[in-house]
C-alpha cells in the first residue's frame, strides 16, 4: 500500500485535472456555450461573452456561482443571457453584494434580506435607487484618496449598478419584450418612416403615426447606445478597420441612414426571441450562422475566444489551488508518519499543480500576446509559480518534504491573493501606452518578480524552521542544517534576481525617460528588497548572525517584499485612502503583524524550544 500510495495520488490528481478539461456541457438543448464563445469588444479587447459573464459576476458579487430565487443554479453564461434577454427575471436575481451596514440602511434592508446575508437583487434596491444616486454624487465630489469607507462602498455599488445597466442595454432594448418584432417592423417601414419624419420637420403633410413610431424607435436606440460600453456589432464587411466595432444601439441608429437593419443587431434580437420563447432550434441555428459570418474576417480572434472559454471553464488556477492545499497537508503529515510515501505523494501533487499553473499562465500569455506579468493579478500568479518552481528543485535535492510544505503554502496563498485581485473585473487588460513594451515587460518585470518569489520562499522556509523548532521536536540537526543551507541559497538567488531586476527597471526608465532612478515608491520598494537581502548576506558573512538570525531576517524579507508588492501601490493612491478600513490594507497590516510575531517567537531563548533539547 505504502509503495503504491504516491502513484495512486498522482493518478487521482491527473484524473481530477483531466476532468476539469472536458468541454463544458449545455444544461439543456439550447447551446448556451456556443453563445458564450461569440466575441465582443470590451475595454479594448475582443473576448468571449463567457468571460464577460464570469468577470461581471466576480465584480458584482465576488464569486461566479449564481442562482435564481427558486434556487436553481445557473451557469455564468445562462445568467448573462437572462440579464441580456429576460431582464425582468434577472432583476430578481440576488447578485449585488452589499456588506456595508450604512449602505444597506440606504435601502432600509437588513443583512437577513439578502442571499447569504449579503447579496441583493435589483428589485430589492429599486425603490431607493434615487437616494443611492444622490449619495454617489456626493461621494464623487470627494477626492478618491480621502473617501470614507461608506463613500467607497457607495461608489462601488453605484459602479456595479452602472455595469449591470450596461449589460442590460448591450444587445436589445430591455423594456421591449418583442424587440425582434420591433426591428422587423422597422425594416419594413424604415423608408416611409424616415420620409414622414423629414416631411414633419419640413412642415409638410406627413403620416403622423409613422413619424411618431420612427422617433420613438430612434430614441430607444439612443438610450441603448448611450447606456452601454459593450461593442457587440463587428465592423461592416467593407470596413478595413477591424477594431471599429459598435454598440448594438449605435449600429441600429445607422438603420435610418442606410435603410437596412444591421444584420448582427437583428441576430441579437433573434437570440432574445429564441431565448425568451425557449426555442433551441432557432437559437442554435443563429449561433452557427453568426459564427460562420464572423469566421471570414475574425478567424484568429474566434479561435482565441474558443480557447478562452475552455480556459474559463477549466479554471486551472482553482484546480491548482486545491492541489497545493492537499499537498501542504500531505507533506505536513509526512513529518509524523509515512515520511517516504506521503512525502513523495505531496511532491507529485505539487508537481501536477505546478504544471497546471504553468499551462494556465502560458494560456494567458498566448491570449494576451504578452509576457507573463502585466498587472498585479498576473504578478501574484507568477510569484507563486516562481516560488513553487524553486521548491520543486529544493525538494528533488533534499527529499525531506520541506520544499512541498513551502510549495503548498506559498502556492495556495499566492493563488488566493490572485483570486481576490480578480474581483475588480477582467484580468486580461490592455496595456497602457507607458507600459507597452514587451521587451521590458519580459525582462525587468519577470526578473524582479522572480526576486519577489525567492524572497518569499526564503521567508516561508524560515517560518518552517522556527515553527518546527519551537513547537515540535521534529527539527533535528540534519534538518536544521539543510534548512539553513536552503534559506541561504535562496537568499543568494533572491539578491541576484531582485538586484538585476531593479537595475533593469532603471535601464528601462533611462531608455524611456532619460533618467535612471527617480526615487518613486515602486522603485524604492524594489531597492529596499535588495538592501534587505544584502543585509542578510553581510550579517551572515560577517558572523553577526547564525542559523537562527538568518531565519529571523529571512522572515523579515516577507514583510519587506509585501511592502514593495502591495504597500507601495496603496501609497500611490494616497496613504490616507486606504485608511484603516480597507480590506487590502488590513490584510497587509495583519500579515506584517503575523511575521513580526514569528520573528519574536524565533527570538525565544533556545532552551524554550522543543527541538534541540538534550534528551
Amino acid at each position: 500500500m505504502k509503495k503504491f500510495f504516491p502513484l495512486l495520488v498522482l493518478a487521482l490528481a491527473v484524473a481530477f485535472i483531466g476532468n476539469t478539461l472536458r468541454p463544458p456541457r449545455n444544461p439543456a438543448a439550447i447551446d448556451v456555450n456556443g453563445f458564450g464563445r461569440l466575441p465582443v469588444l470590451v475595454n479594448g479587447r475582443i473576448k468571449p461573452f463567457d468571460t464577460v459573464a464570469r468577470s461581471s459576476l466576480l465584480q458584482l458579487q465576488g464569486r461566479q456561482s449564481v442562482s435564481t430565487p427558486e434556487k436553481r443554479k445557473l451557469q455564468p453564461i445562462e445568467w448573462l443571457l437572462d440579464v441580456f434577454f429576460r431582464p425582468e427575471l434577472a432583476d430578481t436575481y440576488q447578485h449585488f453584494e452589499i456588506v456595508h451596514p450604512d449602505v444597506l440602511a440606504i435601502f432600509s434592508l437588513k443583512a437577513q434580506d439578502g442571499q447569504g446575508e449579503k447579496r441583493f437583487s435589483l428589485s430589492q434596491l429599486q425603490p431607493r435607487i434615487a437616494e443611492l444616486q444622490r449619495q454617489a454624487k456626493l461621494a464623487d465630489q470627494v477626492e478618491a484618496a480621502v473617501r470614507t469607507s461608506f463613500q467607497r462602498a457607495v461608489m462601488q455599488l453605484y459602479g456595479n449598478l452602472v455595469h449591470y445597466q450596461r449589460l442590460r442595454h448591450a444587445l436589445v432594448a430591455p423594456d421591449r419584450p418583442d424587440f425582434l418584432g420591433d426591428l422587423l417592423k422597422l425594416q419594413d417601414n424604415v423608408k416611409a418612416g424616415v420620409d414622414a419624419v423629414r416631411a414633419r420637420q419640413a412642415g409638410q403633410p406627413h403620416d403622423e403615426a409613422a413619424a411618431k413610431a420612427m422617433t420613438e424607435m430612434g430614441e430607444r436606440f439612443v438610450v441603448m447606445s448611450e447606456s452601454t460600453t459593450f461593442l457587440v456589432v463587428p465592423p461592416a464587411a467593407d470596413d478595413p478597420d477591424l477594431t471599429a466595432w459598435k454598440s448594438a444601439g449605435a449600429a441600429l441608429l445607422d438603420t435610418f441612414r442606410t435603410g437596412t437593419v444591421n444584420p448582427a443587431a437583428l441576430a441579437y434580437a433573434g437570440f432574445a426571441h429564441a431565448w425568451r420563447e425557449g426555442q433551441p432550434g432557432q437559437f442554435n441555428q443563429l449561433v452557427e450562422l453568426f459564427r460562420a459570418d464572423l469566421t471570414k474576417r475574425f478567424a484568429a480572434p474566434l479561435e482565441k475566444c474558443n480557447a478562452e472559454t475552455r480556459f474559463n471553464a477549466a479554471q486551472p488556477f482553482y484546480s491548482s489551488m486545491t492541489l497545493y492545499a492537499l499537498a501542504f497537508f500531505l507533506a505536513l503529515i509526512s513529518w509524523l508518519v509515512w515520511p517516504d510515501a506521503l512525502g513523495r505523494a505531496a511532491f507529485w501533487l505539487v508537481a501536477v499543480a505546478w504544471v497546471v499553473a504553468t499551462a494556465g499562465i502560458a494560456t494567458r500569455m498566448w491570449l494576451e500576446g504578452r509576457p507573463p506579468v502585466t498587472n498585479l493579478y498576473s504578478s501574484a500568479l507568477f510569484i507563486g509559480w516562481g516560488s513553487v518552481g524553486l521548491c520543486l528543485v529544493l525538494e528533488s535535492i533534499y527529499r525531506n518534504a520541506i520544499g512541498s510544505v513551502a510549495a503548498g503554502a506559498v502556492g495556495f496563498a499566492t493563488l488566493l491573493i490572485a483570486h481576490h485581485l480578480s474581483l475588480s473585473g477582467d484580468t486580461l487588460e490592455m496595456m497602457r501606452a507607458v507600459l507597452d513594451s514587451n521587451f521590458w515587460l519580459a525582462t525587468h518585470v519577470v526578473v524582479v518578480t522572480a526576486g519577489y518569489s525567492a524572497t518569499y520562499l526564503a521567508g516561508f522556509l524560515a517560518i518552517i524552521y522556527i515553527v518546527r523548532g519551537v513547537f515540535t521536536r521534529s527539527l533535528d540537526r540534519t534538518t536544521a542544517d539543510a534548512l539553513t543551507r536552503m534559506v541561504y541559497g535562496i537568499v543568494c538567488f533572491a539578491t541576484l534576481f531582485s538586484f538585476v531586476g531593479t537595475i533593469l527597471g532603471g535601464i528601462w526608465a533611462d531608455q524611456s525617460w532619460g533618467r535612471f532612478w527617480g526615487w518613486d515608491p515602486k522603485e524604492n520598494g524594489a531597492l529596499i528588497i535588495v538592501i534587505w537581502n544584502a543585509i542578510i548576506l553581510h550579517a551572515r558573512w560577517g558572523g553577526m548572525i547564525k542559523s537562527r538570525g538568518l531565519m529571523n531576517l529571512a522572515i523579515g524579507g516577507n514583510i519587506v517584499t509585501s511592502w514593495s508588492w502591495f504597500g507601495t501601490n496603496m501609497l500611490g493612491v494616497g496613504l490616507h485612502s486606504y485608511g484603516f478600513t480597507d480590506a487590502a490594507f488590513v490584510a497587509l497590516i495583519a500579515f506584517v503583524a503575523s511575521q513580526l510575531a514569528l520573528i519574536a517567537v524565533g527570538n525565544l531563548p533556545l532552551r524554550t524550544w522543543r527541538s534541540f533539547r538534550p534528551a
Partner: protein
Amino acid sequence: MNDRVRQVRSFFVSMKLSVVLLVLGLVLVFAATIDQVNLGIWAVQEKYFRSFFVLWPVGRMAVPVYPGGYLIGGLLLLNLVAAHLYRFSLSWRKAGIQLTHAGLILLLLGELFTGLLQDDFSMRLTRDEPRNYSESYRANELAIVDTTDAKFDDVVAVPENILSDLRAVQHPKLPFRVVPKEYYPNSAIGSRPADPQAATPPRATQGIGLNVELTPLPITYKQDERNVPGALVELLTGDGSLGTWLVSADPRMPPQRFEHAGRSYTIGMRFARAYKPFSLTLLKFSHDRYSGTEIPKNFSSSIRLTTPDGRDDREVLIYMNNPLRYSGLTFYQASFEPGNDKVTILQVVRNPSWLVPYIACSVMTLGLLWQFGIHLFGFIAKRRNAVRA
C-alpha cells in the same frame, strides 16, 4: 601604528559598519517613501537623499534627526573603499565580491553626480511654432526684456530666490533698479472687483495690476500641481519710481509693456527658461485609444529639429519608450493636453552621468553571477560527493 589609529581603521573596514549603514539606508528609503505622500517626490529627494542630515523643525530651529543620503552614502563609500584596500588580494574566489563592490562604488558615485548635475525641464510645443527653450518644472524667474530692437530681445532674468528675499537688484544692462516689494511662493490671480468702493486700492500702480489682484495660496507639494509665485515689483531710477507692477508666473498673464528713456521694455514673471542652440517644431501629435475605452494606446510626436547654422534639419518621431537624445539632452513624450491635438508636452532631461549606472550595473551583475555561481557549483559538487559516499 598606535592603538587609536588601529581602532579607527578597524572601524572603517568592519563589516558591522556596512550592515549598520545598510540598515540606516533602508530606514531612510522607507521613511522617504512614506513622506512622499506629504511632500511630493521632489521635496523628498532634497530632504532625505540630497542632504547630509534629515532635518526636523522644532519650533523655529531645524534639528538634524537622522543621517541623510549623502552621509550614509558617503560613509558606505568610505567603508567599501577602506575594506577593499585593506583586505585586497588577487584571487578568483574573491573576484566576484570585488567586482560587485567596485560596481557599487561606481553606482554610488553615479547617483551623487546625477544628484548634482541632473536637470529636468518641460517643453510645450504647439503645432508649427518653433521653440528654442524649455521651461523648469519648479523654478521661476522675473524677466525684464528690452524689446526696442525688433531683431532681437535683450533679456535680464532675475531668479526667484532674489525675489523671495526681497533683495533689490541693479543690473548693468538696466537703467533702473529692480526692487521686489512683496513675494508669494504660490498664488492665484483674479480680476479685481468692479466696484471701487468695496475694494482696497490696488497695490500696483502700473500695468495689469490695476485690474488684477493676487491671492496668496499655501505651497503645494502635489506632484501634478505647481506653485505659481506672484510678486509686486517696483522699478526705481535715481530720479524716483517708475511705478509698481504686479507680476505672476501664471501663464495666462502676459508680459507687461512699458517705455523708459526712449526704450521699450516688458516685465513679467515666467517659468525659468533654459535656451537651446537648436529649435524644435511640432509637426503632428497623435494619440490613439483602445476602441471603446479611454485607455491610451500610444502617443507620438512628429517633430522637426533645426539648428540656426543649418547643420541639422531633420524630422524625428518621439513616442513612448523611444525618446530623442540630442546634444546631451533626452526628450521624451511626457504628456499632452486632453482634447487639444495641436499641443504636445515633452520632458527634457540633462544627465551627463547617464552612462555610469550602465557600467556599474554590468560590473555588479557579473560580480554577483560569479560569486553565487561559485557557491552553487561548490554546493553541487559537495552534494555529489555526499551522495557517492
